[in-house]
Each structure stands twice: as C-alpha cells, then as structure tokens.
C-alpha cells in the first residue's frame, strides 16, 4: 500500500472545525457529480457540489477514521492490564519452575555418592519444571505482543496513517495466534501427561 501524507488526528479535527480543505493526494471516490462521467475538470465540480459532504469524503479517504481510533484507544487500557498480568504470570512460573529444579537438584544430591542414575523424584520435578518454563515462555510472548499492540495503537493515534494501522492489525493477529497456540500446547501436554500417568 502506498504511504500517504501523515495527517495527525488533532490537525484533521482543527481543519474540519475551520472549514479548511485538507490536501488529498489521490482520493478514492471520484469527485465528479453523477452524469458528468469524469469529463469536467475537478475544481468547478467541487464548487458546484455540497462542500461539507465532499470535505467529509476526502477526509475519510485520507487516513484512519476517528471512530476506529476511538475503539483502539478503548482497547489499549485493558490490554495493558492483561499484559501486566501475563508478566506476573511469567514471573510466577519462573519462580515455581526454579524451585522445582532446585528440588530436583537436592533430591539428586541426597542420593549416594556412587550412584549415577537419576532418581525418579528428580525426573518428575524436572518434567513439571519444564511445563512451568513453557508456561513462562507463553506468558512472556503474549505479554510482549500485547505491549507491542498498545505501542502500535499509540503510533496510529498520533499519525492517523493507514500503514500504522496495518501494524496494529498484525499484532492483533499475533495475540490471538499465541493464545490459540498456547491452548493447543496445553491440550497436547495434558493428554500426554494423562497417558504417561496411566
């Protein structure tokens, strides 16, 4: 997609209030009245038509509409809250996983000095710790993606540019991809652990 001129939202609002026409490079909708079939030049047609409707059409064509920006702004607060919870979850997983590994090391250390084989208890602790570390990785990825989404929303709110909205939607896809994949991983892990327990 070709990049268009950046027009901040606040500036666009000011222009709308003052009645000044924003500069449009190539408007999507033709600025020609029906029946003219694009024969007449643009300037006289604009002068003959309703100026407010035309201005609105040009403004909407220029960048991300304000109502989309409002929806995105309303999402960022809650997603930032969710991201903080993901980071806390990652920290919790790291602590519990670390403690389990420590337990495994202590269990192994309590065996006789000559014994080389790994104890069943320490193996089990390591397996559970691995599960927690996978959980930590998922929480961290999800939290980071959420923060990136919020940052991208901040950028698109400042620029009002469609190219920045692409980044926002890309991060949105990433959030749901990670969420779905993590559910899939948890399902597989639970089935595998149930099979091992049998």
């Amino acid at each position: 997609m070709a990049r268009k001129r950046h027009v901040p939202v606040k500036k666009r609002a000011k222009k709308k209030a003052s009645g000044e026409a924003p500069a449009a490079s190539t408007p999507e909708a033709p600025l020609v009245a029906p029946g003219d079939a694009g024969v007449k030049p643009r300037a006289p047609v604009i002068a003959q038509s309703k100026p407010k409707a035309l201005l609105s059409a040009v403004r909407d064509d220029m960048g991300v509409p304000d109502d989309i920006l409002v929806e995105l702004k309303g999402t960022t607060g809650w997603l930032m809250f969710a991201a903080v919870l993901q980071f806390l979850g990652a920290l919790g997983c790291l602590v519990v996983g670390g403690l389990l590994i420590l337990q495994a090391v202590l269990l192994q250390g309590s065996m006789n000095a000559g014994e080389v084989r790994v104890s069943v208890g320490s193996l089990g602790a390591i397996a559970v710790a691995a599960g927690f570390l996978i959980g930590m990785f998922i929480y961290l990825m999800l939290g980071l993606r959420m923060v990136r989404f919020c940052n991208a929303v901040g950028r698109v709110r400042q620029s009002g540019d469609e190219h920045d909205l692409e980044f926002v939607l890309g991060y949105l896809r990433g959030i749901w991809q990670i969420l779905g994949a993590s559910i899939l991983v948890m399902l597989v892990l639970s089935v595998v652990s149930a099979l091992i327990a049998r």
Partner: protein
Amino acid sequence: MKTSAYMLDAMRGTRPWITFICVLGFLGAFITILAGLLSGGMAFLQKGEMGEKLAVLPVALLFLINGGIALYLLTRLWAFGSSIGQFSESGATSALKQGLAQHRQFWKAWGIITIVLMSLNVIAVGILFFLGMLGWAFGGGEFDAAAIQLIQ
C-alpha cells in the same frame, strides 16, 4: 480509508484462531454448566439430610456462575470473529470498525470480570486469614473453636 491486502490478510489470519478458541471454550463452558446442574440435581435427588443437600448448593452454584461467565465472554469473542469474517469478505471500513468495537468490548468485559474475581479472591483469603488469626488467638490454634466463639 483504503483497505489494504495486508489488513485483510491479518484479519483472515486471526479468525481461525478465534473460532478455535470459541469452539473449545463453548465446549468447556457447557461441560461446566452441565456439571453444576448435575451436581445440584443429584444432591437433591439422593436421600439424605437437608443440610447435606444444601452444602452441595454453593459448589453447584460456583460451577454455574463460572460456566455463565465463560459463555458471556465467548459470545463476545464469537461476535468479534463474525465481524472479522464480514470485514474479510467485504473489506468495508464499517465492518472493521464493528470488529474492533467487539474486540474492545471483549477485553473490557474480560478485564472487569478479572478485577472482580481477583478482588473476591483477595477478600476470601483475607477472611480466612482473619479467622485463622482468631483461631490462633482465642482457640489455642484451633480453627473450629474460633468459629464457635464467633457464632456465640
């Protein structure tokens, strides 16, 4: 606003995951609600004292509330998925706006429910801690004695 191919691709890539999460979630929510209904119903159908039957009621209610909350959130998510589908087909800005509005509503509902549940957890832990301290102070370490003293 011009809808680019990347925007459509991003939304098309989002929808399968939303559907996957919703299908699994609906399954889980229905099982939870069913478990609540069955545990409550079975308790009242079986012979026994009324007190024992009533004791099962909070657990059944908890299952029903959990299932209801999940169902509510999932319907919001499903609506987001539907809007994404409309946007993917038409490429209309209005559909994208509607989808993002549904997305915002989902996260808002999720956030409010999470805050409420976390607050309830903190309150419950606080009450248990308080009762435990009472037990330690007045009941010689016995939780039951503290509870009896509170009731008396």
